[in-house]
């Protein structure tokens, strides 16, 4: 018998064991998000970038809305020739995703013809369509803000009766809920209207650079494309402005390290005109720039700066100290721009021929045109609108809690979006009939069980990928955003053998070599543990973490490509960073001494 050594592989979906005692909680996820036998044939990877923690029932709405939209634009709107949508499955609370590809040459040809009529129109009219996009988003945000708080008064308002409205208050609970969901789903549609086309243009340039300059690093290509005025820098910039203002007004003594934001605001209110001036500036900065989420994913409990002022306020004293010491907080935007132009010109000059220079000019030109969208949409979609949406859902939570469906309004997030609709219908029935709602007997136990399951799942590591490794991964979003390539997957598979050497490999995201103490931060709540000079080791970072990049010496993440947040922010702050390691948070123990080589993409446990 011919015995072949078993190739290294990830476990199959069917081999993933449900954590004991969580079977009922697992069943809360909609049937179409459950793994089936057929899924064993396909490759899946853990989407730790967007969903690094076990999924509360309601929060699965984000995956639904986002993958609807992503798939629709790829498959049916822009008709990308080789790439369709992304399927998601959830097991043990963990979101796995898998891309769908077109491989039949005839079908690719047919789709290419469609793509040229559709996507090319977008590239040709990019600026106009993007201006239109900004208007649409502004209107969508306004609409969401205008949705009334759901309320069930004992009797319908008298004026509603006299005006002959003919519709009672319970119905408006339903419409408000539908509008809230509708807005969120529409936001995700807008989100993907441009995104893949933007990534595609960038990847085209990236691909060219890798061929023309085989030794070029990903981060150098990213530096040639990235904008300096991206809106993701804006919240941090606004915070710096507020720090400057406080110093100018000689108010910085009020910003005591460790004091709560609430106490600081109160003390400023008593400071007369100076205090008022700062508070006015603060009010205008926070709307909209403090609508930035502090989380590392899309979770209802990752509040925005506006909802939880502790992150921005904890950064303020440090900024003020810098200013008092005469140090600048400004990002050297002009210098960064000049540097970018110089790098572009020098690479261009190194090309072999005018023909190559012509192609280079076209590709980088297109990248520069499309990139503002790629960089800026996040603030409007992932941050502002998402914060707005979850806060709106909280209003329904408060209403249900008032009717004793559960103890705490936050518990609404333990119900799926479908279950919330059922609970609201239950409440509408009870309110209209004068009978008792059934929810209070039903939900508290379920909520308790699900919370316990989430806590249990969080204790278990989950494989970075499932199923057979594909030969090529040709989805631009997967390569660029998640940093997943066939090479990377093989590195993850060989992570065990690398463990002997104490080396962990990932994407070289920002160069430099640094040694220091690793601080493994698995959830956003742990950020506070970071001390000056630590090396951040996390699943993935988020733009609102920017203030902590001043504290740390280097960053390492499980997930992310060369254009991920961690990579961009690390370059901006000149910190070494290695992203997309797959397993850094599992392999590195808190407090260990590690070396981060950001140019080679290697982290060494010392």
């Amino acid at each position, binding site marked *: 018998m011919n015995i072949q050594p078993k190739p290294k592989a990830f476990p199959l979906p069917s081999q993933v064991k449900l954590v004991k005692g969580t079977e009922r909680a697992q069943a809360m996820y909609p049937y179409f998000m459950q793994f089936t036998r057929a899924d064993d044939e396909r490759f899946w990877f853990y989407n730790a970038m967007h969903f690094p923690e076990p999924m509360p029932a309601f929060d699965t709405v984000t995956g639904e809305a986002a993958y609807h939209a992503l798939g629709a634009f790829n498959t049916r709107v822009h008709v*990308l*020739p*080789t*790439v369709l949508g992304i399927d998601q499955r959830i097991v043990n609370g963990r979101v796995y995703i898998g891309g769908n590809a077109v491989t039949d040459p005839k079908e*690719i040809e047919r789709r*290419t013809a469609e*793509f040229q009529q559709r*996507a*090319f129109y977008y*590239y*040709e009219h990019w600026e106009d369509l993007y201006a239109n996009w900004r208007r649409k988003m502004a209107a969508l945000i306004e609409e969401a803000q205008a949705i009334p708080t759901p309320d069930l008064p004992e009797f319908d308002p008298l004026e509603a009766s006299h005006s002959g409205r003919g519709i009672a208050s319970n119905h408006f609970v339903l419409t408000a809920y539908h509008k809230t969901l509708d807005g969120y789903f529409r936001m995700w549609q807008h989100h993907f209207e441009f995104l893949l*086309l933007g990534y*595609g*243009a960038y*990847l*085209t340039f990236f*691909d*060219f650079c890798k*061929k*023309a*300059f*085989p*030794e*070029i*690093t990903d*981060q*150098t290509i990213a*530096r040639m494309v990235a904008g300096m005025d991206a809106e993701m820098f804006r919240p941090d910039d606004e915070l710096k402005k507020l720090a400057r203002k406080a110093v100018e007004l000689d108010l910085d003594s009020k910003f005591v390290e460790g004091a709560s934001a609430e106490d600081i605001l109160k003390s400023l209110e008593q400071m007369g005109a100076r205090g008022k001036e700062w508070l006015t500036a603060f009010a205008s900065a926070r709307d909209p720039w403090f609508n930035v989420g502090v989380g590392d994913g899309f979770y209802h409990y990752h509040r925005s700066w506006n909802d939880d002022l502790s992150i921005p306020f904890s950064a303020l004293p440090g900024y003020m100290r810098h200013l008092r010491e005469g140090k600048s907080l400004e990002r050297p935007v002009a210098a960064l721009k000049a540097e970018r132009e110089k*790098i572009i010109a*020098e*690479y261009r000059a*190194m090309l*072999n*021929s005018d*023909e*190559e220079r*012509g*192609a*280079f*000019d*076209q*590709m980088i*030109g*297109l990248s520069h045109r499309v990139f503002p969208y790629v960089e800026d949409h996040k603030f409007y979609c992932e941050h502002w609108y998402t914060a707005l949406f979850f806060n709106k859902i909280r209003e329904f939570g408060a209403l249900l809690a008032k009717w004793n469906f559960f103890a705490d309004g936050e518990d609404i997030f333990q119900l799926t979006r479908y279950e919330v609709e059922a609970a609201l219908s239950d409440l509408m029935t009870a309110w209209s009939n004068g009978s008792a709602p059934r929810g209070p007997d039903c939900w508290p136990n379920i909520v308790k069980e699900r919370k316990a399951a989430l806590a249990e799942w969080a204790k278990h590591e989950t494989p970075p990928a499932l199923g057979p490794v594909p030969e090529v991964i*040709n989805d*631009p979003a997967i390569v660029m955003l998640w940093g997943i390539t066939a090479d990377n997957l093989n590195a993850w598979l060989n992570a065990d053998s690398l463990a002997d050497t104490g080396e962990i490999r990932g994407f*070289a995201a920002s*160069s430099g*070599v640094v040694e220091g103490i690793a601080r493994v931060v698995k959830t956003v709540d742990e950020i506070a543990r970071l001390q000056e000079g630590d090396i951040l080791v996390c699943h993935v970072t988020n733009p609102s973490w920017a203030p902590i990049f001043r504290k740390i010496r280097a960053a390492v993440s499980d997930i992310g490509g060369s254009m991920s947040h961690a990579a961009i922010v690390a370059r901006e702050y000149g910190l070494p960073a290695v992203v997309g390691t797959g397993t850094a948070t599992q392999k590195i123990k808190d407090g260990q001494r590690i070396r981060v*080589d950001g*140019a*080679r993409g290697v982290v060494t446990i010392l």
Partner: protein
Amino acid sequence: MQRFSSIGWFADIGLADRPSVGGKGGSLGELARAGISVPPGFVVRTAAFERFLEALERERPVRAAVAALDPDDLAAIATCSGALRARVEGAVLPDDIRDAILAAYEELVRGVPDAAVAVRSSATTEDSEDASFAGLQDTYLWTKGAAETLRKVQSCWASLYSVPSIAYRRKHDLPEAGVAMGVVVQLMVDARSAGVMFTRSPTTGDRTVVTIESSWGLGSAIVGGEVTPDRFVISKITDEIAARDVSLKLAQHLPADEGGVRDAAVPEAMQRAPSLSDSELVELVAIAKRVERHYGRPQDIEWAIARHASGTDAIFLLQSRPETVWAARDGAPVAKPAVRPMDHVLNIFGGRR
């Protein structure tokens, strides 16, 4: 009658003088003139070799004997080589050549305590486009004293008649009359680290990086393949160190007390340590860029860092020659301009990668 000149100081020669000083000498002179630091030295011009050879030819033919050899008859080549080398090494130098070399030598080592020189072959066809001819002739490192230097000059000349050198010329049917040899005599650098650098990647042909290979001690250990050097890839544009492979370095070449080079073990603490600091890397890259710009094409460069010096003063170039491997391969453009910029995105979306 025009005064015969056996010696050319680096400052007075350049690439254009290659026919009279050989490739290596011309290149070192060119570098020195371009303001790049090379260890001071002079070339014993090819004319001196010609004069010396004339005297030999009068006794018995030299060139004709080589020209008559069958390239495939290695036994005949070996016999001829042995005889010619012995003749060249054993002959007495004409007085004027001997005096000129000695005078130049004394000037070179004046004020240098315990001076040692490198005596390096600089054949006229060497270091030209035909790079593979390089390395066929001998080099003598860490030569001490005037008498020994004179002997090594003759040994270099004799190496023109080594078996591989003769075999190469016969195989490529190079006319013996066109083959002459200059000899470089220059002060040795007591190298703490030495190595080679390429102003275009030897592995991928990328022109935007400098690849530096480096190890402890004299560069001869790397050239001779006795040690796996550290390898660094640095962007010429951003100075970013894109790769840093520090190898296990067990052997090094150090100067021997009695002259010449000895093999030595690398002390344990240095075996896994990088043989270059980051600031030295940056300085080397700056020099590499200057040299490349001076020549207007990619170069392969040998360099050394002196043990008892610091900063830019410590770095010396020992050789620079045009890169030939990738130059021959440059071909089709990576991409051509499209009708519309967006046509390029089909490279990604269309799966035509």
